[in-house]
C-alpha cells in the first residue's frame, strides 16, 4: 500500500467525501431502546434495576467504614515487613522508577507515558494525609523518576547508553530481591517473609513472569523439535502440568515435597511456591508461543535458510520475533491471570494481599468490614491488570508498523 497517499488524501475535482450520517438523540433512543413494545419494557425494567442497584451501592459506600483501609494500609501493602527495614522497599521502588524514568527519557513513547504517570501519581499521593515521613518517601519516587528521565534524555546521545540501560533492567530483578529479602553477609535477612501482603503478589508475579516466559519459549521450541526425545519430554511436561490445577500443585509443593526430599533439603516455602507457579505458567506459555510459531509461513524458514542463516539464527532473528508479536494478547492475558493466581499462595499459608485481609476481617476491632476490604482488593487488582492490558495494547500498536 502507498502509505503517503493514504495519510494525506485530498479530494480532487470529481471526487466526493463520503456522506456523513447524523443521528439525532431522540431517533437513536427510538431505534435502539424503544423499537418495539417488548424492547421498551426491557429498557424500563433494566433502567429501574440499575438505578436501584446504584442507589444501594451509593448508600453503602457512604456509610461504609473506609477507615479500615488507611488504618491497615501498611499491613495490606507489605504485611509484617518490619518498619525499621521499610527503607529497603522504598530504595527498590526508587531504583525501578529511576530505570523507568531513564527509559522514558531515552526512548520516549510508552515508557515516557509510564514515567509521567509515576510522577503524577506520586505527587497526588503526597497530597493525601499520610504521615510526614511517608509523604517524603512518596515524593522521592517522583523525584527519582524525574532524575532518571533527565539522565535518559541527555544520555541517549551516547551510543552505549541504551545497552547499559538494558543491562540494568536485567540486573534489577536480582538486586530487588536481595534488597527486599536481604542477603547473608551484606544485608541482614528479613524474617517472616510469608506474610508480606500485596508485596508477595507483586514479587510472585514478577518472578513468575520473568522465569516462565523464557522457559515457555524453550518448551514450545522443544515441542516442535525434530529430536523425538526432546519432543516427547516437552510434550509430556506440558500436557501433565496443564492437566493439574495450580492449587493442587501448590499443595504438593508445600506438603508433598517435604516428604519426598531428603530432610536436609528444605527450600523455603515462598521459593517453592514461586517455583510452582513458574513451572505451571511455563506450560501454558509454551502453548501460547507454539500457537504463534504455527502461524509463521513455511516461506519464512525457506528464505532464512536460503540466505544462509543457521537454525539458531533463523529462530531468534526471523521466526520468534514474528511469532511472539502474533501472540502478545494471549501472553499478556496469561500474565494477568498469573498475577491473580498469586492469591492462591494464601492457601499454603503465604499471607498475600487476599489472605492478609482475611486476617484483618477476623480482628474484633474491624468486624463487619468484609466488603470494604474486598472492594479495596478488587480495585488494586483491577488497576494492576488494566495497566498490563493497556501496556500490551500500546506495544501491539507500536509493533504493528509495516505489518502485512
Amino acid at each position: 500500500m502507498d502509505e503517503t497517499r493514504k495519510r494525506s488524501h485530498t479530494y480532487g475535482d470529481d471526487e466526493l467525501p463520503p456522506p456523513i450520517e447524523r443521528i439525532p438523540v431522540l431517533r437513536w433512543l427510538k431505534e435502539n431502546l424503544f423499537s418495539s413494545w417488548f424492547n421498551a419494557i426491557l429498557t424500563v425494567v433494566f433502567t429501574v434495576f440499575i438505578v436501584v442497584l446504584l442507589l444501594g451501592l451509593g448508600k453503602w459506600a457512604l456509610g461504609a467504614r473506609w477507615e479500615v483501609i488507611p488504618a491497615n494500609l501498611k499491613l495490606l501493602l507489605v504485611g509484617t515487613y518490619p518498619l525499621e527495614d521499610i527503607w529497603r522497599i522504598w530504595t527498590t521502588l526508587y531504583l525501578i522508577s529511576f530505570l523507568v524514568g531513564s527509559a522514558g527519557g531515552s526512548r520516549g513513547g510508552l515508557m515516557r507515558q509510564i514515567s509521567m504517570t509515576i510522577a503524577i501519581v506520586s505527587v497526588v499521593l503526597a497530597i493525601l494525609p499520610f504521615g510526614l515521613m511517608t509523604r517524603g518517601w512518596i515524593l522521592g519516587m517522583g523525584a527519582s523518576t524525574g532524575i532518571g528521565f533527565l539522565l535518559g534524555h541527555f544520555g541517549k546521545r551516547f551510543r552505549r547508553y541504551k545497552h547499559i540501560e538494558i543491562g540494568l533492567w536485567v540486573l534489577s530483578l536480582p538486586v530487588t530481591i536481595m534488597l527486599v529479602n536481604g542477603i547473608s553477609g551484606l544485608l541482614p535477612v528479613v524474617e517472616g517473609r510469608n506474610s508480606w501482603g500485596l508485596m508477595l503478589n507483586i514479587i510472585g508475579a514478577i518472578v513468575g513472569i520473568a522465569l516462565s516466559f523464557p522457559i515457555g519459549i524453550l518448551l514450545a521450541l522443544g515441542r516442535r523439535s525434530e529430536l523425538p526425545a526432546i519432543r516427547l519430554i516437552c510434550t509430556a511436561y506440558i500436557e501433565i502440568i496443564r492437566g493439574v490445577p495450580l492449587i493442587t500443585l501448590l499443595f504438593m509443593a508445600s506438603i508433598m515435597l517435604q516428604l519426598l526430599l531428603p530432610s536436609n533439603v528444605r527450600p523455603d516455602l515462598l521459593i517453592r511456591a514461586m517455583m510452582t507457579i513458574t513451572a505451571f505458567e511455563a506450560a501454558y506459555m509454551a502453548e501460547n508461543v507454539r500457537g504463534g510459531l504455527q502461524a509463521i509461513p513455511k516461506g519464512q524458514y525457506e528464505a532464512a535458510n536460503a540466505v544462509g542463516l543457521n537454525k539458531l539464527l533463523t529462530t531468534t532473528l526471523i521466526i520468534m520475533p514474528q511469532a511472539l508479536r502474533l501472540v502478545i494478547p494471549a501472553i499478556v492475558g496469561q500474565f494477568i491471570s498469573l498475577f491473580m493466581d498469586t492469591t492462591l499462595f494464601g492457601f499454603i499459608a503465604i499471607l498475600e494481599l487476599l489472605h492478609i485481609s482475611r486476617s484483618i476481617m477476623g480482628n474484633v476491632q474491624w468486624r463487619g468490614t468484609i466488603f470494604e476490604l474486598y472492594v479495596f482488593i478488587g480495585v488494586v487488582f483491577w488497576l494492576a491488570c488494566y495497566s498490563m492490558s493497556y501496556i500490551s495494547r500500546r506495544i501491539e500498536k507500536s509493533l504493528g508498523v509495516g505489518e502485512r
Partner: protein
Amino acid sequence: MSTNNNEGIIILRDVHKWYGDFHVLRGVSFSMHTGEVLVICGPSGSGKSTCIRTINRLEDHQKGQIIVDGIELTNDLRNIEAIRRDVGMVFQQFNLFPHLTVLQNVSLAPFWVLKMKKSKAEEIALQLLERVGIPDQADKYPGQLSGGQQQRVAIARALAMSPKIMLFDEPTSALDPEMIKEVLDVMKELARSGMTMIVVTHEMGFAREVADRIIFFDYGQIVEENTPEDFFHNPQHERTKLFLSQILDY
C-alpha cells in the same frame, strides 16, 4: 577453487525425488557452466520448482548426485551451509521478513552469516538497493511496498551474500502484470553482468531474449533441452510443441 570446475558449476546426475509415493523427479541430469543463464519451463506440477529447490537443499533428493561448485550435496550440514552461502534464491511469494525494514532484510545475512561490520553490511545493502532501483525505500517495511518492489528487494537480499549462482523460482508469477517488467529488467541486467542463473518461469519473452539454454520439463523429466532459437522455432518433441502452442497463442 575446485578440481572439477571445468565440468560445470552445477551438475545434476540422475536425480530422483519422491513425495511419499509420488515420484516428482524421475532422473534429472544436466550441467551448467559459470555465467550461463538457464531457463526451465514446463506445465505446473512438472517438478521444475522442486528441481531448483534441490540445488540449495530446500528439498532433499533421494537418489542421484548434485554437485554445486565442486561440493556434493549430502546430509552433511556444513556442506549445505557452504552451498547456501554461494547460492542465492528468489521466491515466487518474495518471502521477505515482514518485521524488518528493507535495509535490514538486505543487510541481515551479510552481518550475521558473513560477520561483516554493521556499517559495511548496510553500505552494501544500499548499493544493491540502488542497483535494483529502490534506494529510497530502504527504511520502509516490506508490507508498505508494491509486489514488484518487494521482489526487487528479495533479489537484493539474495545478492547481498555475493552468491556465485542465483536461483529464481517463478519470480514474476505472483505479480500484477504492470510490475512484471521492472523485475525482469533487474534480472536481465543481472544476466548481462555475468551471473550464473537458473530461472523457472513462464515468461517466454524473457527466455527468448536472455536465456543461453532452455530446458522443458514434464512429469519430472527433462523432455527437451535446446537453445532459445531452436526451442521456439524448431522444437523437437510433440509435448514441447503443444506447450508452446498453448502458451504462445495468446
